[in-house]
């Protein structure tokens, strides 16, 4: 099998899905690039990060559609196209731009099926880029997928490996519900073995990124990569960490989390999002409510602070949950053998 980066497999998967199904279209800002330019180059960009490169040449400008800067219209049009038989893949360049099109995501495409009594399907995939790490400053670096996870009717995908990126994107495009597919900027160059053939990975099935016995770490997106690094490191010390990458925050594979915590009795949750109402809080609360009896120690959350992402690179690095912080949270939870207050009944 070839080694491919996440960037490569996303591009490959888009092409494969477009070949497979003529109803799949791609739209967004500069997904081709160069329209109205003076050079006559037909594809001057293929997306700001090159993710959609080559698609226009193969599928033409009626399936690979450059739009003005108009996110509400992009998502709305994707929704309308989906209601009328297409399977649009809309690009929201940065997840930070969700603020200019949230209504179309939250009140429109995510609600159509429900509010129309089950009589419509809205197979929209929104591809977007998230995360800190590039010094892009407070309006281009956030990881605000938890607010999207709270939206009923929307599915939220967070690939952390190249293999997963391919299978999950194929699933997203073939899914009859709206999906937001969150690509972490800092993971585009992450690579791994990926088959050339198409395949799908079901939503709501976690990946066990690292097996372990002593403690469970649930980590999303880039944090799963960090957590796995930490698990490998601690393994050498004989500390056995189980890393669970849920891959989709909605639907969430609760079973995998419960199974692991049942085994380990200890939980750390890692999330690059801001702490309030995060997926870290969601997972921690889930276990505290549904698997409390398994817990042998307090849960620990490792998240970004309750601040925007600062521009300064060192501050930004301090902002992002680091392997070091994950490691110390793990040690803290392992050290804390809670002696729970005896039930007084």
């Amino acid at each position, binding site marked *: 099998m070839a080694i491919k980066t996440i960037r490569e497999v996303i591009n490959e998967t888009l092409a494969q899905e477009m070949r497979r199904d003529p109803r799949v279209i791609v739209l967004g800002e500069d997904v081709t690039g160069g329209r109205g330019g003076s050079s006559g180059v037909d594809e001057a960009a293929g997306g700001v990060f090159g993710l959609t490169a080559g698609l226009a040449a193969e599928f033409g400008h009626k399936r690979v559609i450059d739009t003005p800067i108009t996110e509400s219209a992009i998502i709305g049009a994707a929704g309308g196209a989906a209601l009328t038989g297409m399977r649009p893949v809309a690009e929201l360049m940065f997840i930070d731009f969700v603020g200019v099109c949230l209504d179309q995501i939250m009140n*429109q495409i995510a609600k159509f099926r429900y509010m129309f009594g089950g009589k419509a399907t809205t197979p929209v995939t929104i591809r977007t880029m998230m995360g800190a790490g590039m010094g892009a400053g407070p309006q281009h670096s956030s990881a605000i997928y938890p607010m999207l996870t709270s939206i009923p009717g929307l599915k939220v995908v967070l690939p952390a490996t190249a293999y997963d990126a391919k299978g999950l994107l194929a699933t997203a495009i073939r899914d009859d519900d709206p999906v937001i597919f969150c690509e972490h900027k800092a993971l585009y160059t992450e690579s791994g073995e990926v088959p050339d053939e198409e395949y799908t990975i079901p939503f709501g099935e976690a990946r066990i990124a690292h097996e372990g016995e002593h403690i469970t770490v649930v980590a999303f997106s880039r944090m799963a990569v960090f957590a796995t690094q930490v698990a490998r490191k601690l393994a050498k010390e004989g500390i056995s960490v189980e890393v669970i990458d849920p891959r989709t925050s909605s639907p969430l594979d609760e079973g995998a989390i419960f199974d692991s915590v049942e085994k380990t009795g200890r939980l750390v949750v890692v999330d690059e999002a801001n702490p309030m109402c995060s997926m870290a809080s969601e997972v921690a609360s889930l276990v505290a409510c549904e698997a409390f009896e398994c817990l042998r120690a307090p849960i620990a959350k490792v998240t970004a602070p309750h601040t925007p992402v600062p521009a300064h690179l060192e501050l930004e690095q301090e902002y992002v949950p680091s392997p070091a912080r994950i490691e110390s949270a793990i040690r803290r939870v392992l050290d804390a053998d809670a002696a729970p207050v005896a039930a007084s009944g």
Partner: protein
Amino acid sequence: MATIDTATLREAYWRMRAIREFEERMRREFEAGTVPGFIHLYCGQEAVAVGACMHLRDTDYIGSTHRGHGHCIAKGCDIGDMLLEIYCKDGGLCNGKGGSMHIADMAKGMLGANAIVGAAPPIAVGAALSAWSQGTDGVALAFIGDGASNQGTVFEAMNLASVLKLPMIFMYENNGYAEFTGVSYHCGGGDIAGRAAGFGMPATKVDGTDFYAVYDAMGKAVERARAGEGPSAIEAVAMRWYGHFQGDPQAYRSKEELAQVRRDGDPLIKFREQVLADRTLDADTLDGIDAEIRTLIDKHVERAKAAPNPPKEALYSDVYVNY
């Protein structure tokens, strides 16, 4: 003005009368407390929806507003199923989960009433994009209130339709008010149709109480759209007869205005006078339709009231295809 064949005129009258009767009945039922939620009536604007939709096929699409009953009827939604929905009953067009402000019917090309002002135009543009991308001759239309014409999403929809030259019609319904605020206040420049020029789009302003005027303008816009020549805008002026929502005391409107609107702004009377003068339809036909519709609405309202509620489990279904 093109001549309109009798069957079309008959059908147009049927739909306009159905809207009027439907809305008047809803008004009375709401006052009587039988209708849940809140409702926004379409009386006075019948010729806009019908004049536009008479040009559309089931495979053409419309996006609608919170004031959507008239659009649904004009686009051919089943009146009984609409009433079931307004009463939030099982078997309603949205199985009781949408209600008055969310009636939708994909089979009839009705993309949904929409309780978010300005949200439907981008969605309707998406339907036009479907047709354009697939190379069919389908068209899409968005109904947009005068108040909605100020919402950013609406301008974005116009621009996107213009850039891609989509088969799209923007039908502005200027009914004088956005909630309790007059169009002369809320609309900078005061000329809704005039804004289309900024997107390189032809626009006409018509008397929205005159079925013929709307039908005519829409005919040109649809022809243009089907021919692949791109989007158009129409501003149809037709004052609303009642309050913003049923129950609105309308302190912002003078008695004179309300009287004048009733006197000069009844699209059904105008239509009737015109067809009788032209001898295209006779009084018996029109009266027959009136009677037919009264019976129809009666029957469906009673059926809707008596219909079963959605089951409790309906709360949890249809969030996702498998949930």
